[in-house]
């Protein structure tokens, strides 16, 4: 009961400060959590959470401020990741703001538990993205600088194979020639080639599959295939 009155009084005081636009004169440093406001007691948190669904900004502010120690505590756990502590605390603060804004008071879970998960998750997501970006290299990455100060960029030394442009065109011509050569085959030979090399649907079937479909032996398919390919090669040579 005393705690309820205390937090109610604090909230009113908070609102007055808000209304007047007054702030405390302290400067808070990330390194020293002793300057941060103390965490809420269970009773205080309960009182504030009953007011949270009313979208009360004073309540939100208080819940965020009184959980800032949690942000610093969690951020410090990631101190060895190469990201500076100020950034980690900022990311954690974003996680805390998200936590207070998305907290469901209907669920039987403590805000601090939910906020811890949100803060940690926010930092982990950032670190994961950061590691991904680290492995990416820009085309404009300077590799070296000569005596005159000219930068040698990665894009300067990147090249393509000589036939990159012509390869696609040649592929198109080959496809047309193959189609012409296939027209010279009998219907059964065409079916075998289409099934074996997936010419109509892109799915290549085994000799056994084709043999089963056409009701002939696999060894016969093998012989036919060799013969057809030999014929196609001849037709090809005639066309080139």
């Amino acid at each position: 009961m005393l705690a309820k009155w205390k937090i109610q009084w604090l909230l009113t005081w908070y609102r007055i400060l808000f209304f007047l636009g007054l702030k405390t004169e302290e400067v808070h440093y990330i390194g020293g959590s002793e300057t941060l406001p103390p965490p809420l007691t269970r009773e205080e948190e309960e009182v504030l959470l009953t007011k949270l669904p009313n979208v009360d900004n004073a309540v939100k502010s208080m819940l965020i401020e009184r959980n800032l120690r949690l942000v610093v505590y969690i951020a410090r756990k990631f101190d060895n990741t190469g990201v500076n502590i100020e950034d980690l605390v900022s990311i954690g603060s974003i996680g805390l703001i998200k936590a207070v804004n998305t907290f469901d008071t209907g669920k039987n879970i403590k805000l601090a538990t939910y906020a811890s998960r949100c803060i940690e998750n926010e930092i982990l997501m950032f670190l994961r993205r950061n590691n991904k970006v680290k492995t990416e290299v820009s085309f404009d990455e300077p590799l070296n600088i000569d005596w005159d100060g000219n930068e040698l960029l990665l894009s300067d030394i990147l090249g393509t194979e000589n036939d990159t442009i012509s390869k696609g065109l040649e592929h198109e011509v080959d496809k047309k020639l193959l189609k012409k050569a296939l027209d010279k085959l009998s219907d059964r030979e065409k079916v075998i080639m289409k099934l074996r090399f997936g010419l109509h649907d892109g799915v290549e079937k085994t000799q056994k599959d084709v043999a089963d479909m056409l009701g002939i032996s696999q060894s016969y398919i093998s012989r036919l295939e060799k013969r057809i390919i030999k014929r196609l090669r001849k037709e090809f040579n005639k066309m080139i």
Partner: protein
Amino acid sequence: MYKTNEAKFCIMCGHKEKEGIMIHKGFICDECANEIVHTEVEDEKYSFFIQRMKELWVKNA
């Protein structure tokens, strides 16, 4: 919706607003707070929020 008497400068967008949350010495307007909630680490604006968020800890105004 809770309003402050005087409009304050939002540490995120720099606009003078009345509605928002106050954390330490920093004021974040409702619009920016809402944007923060819906911004993911992959988003372009995320690094901007990280930088601006530092104002919460050192702002002395």
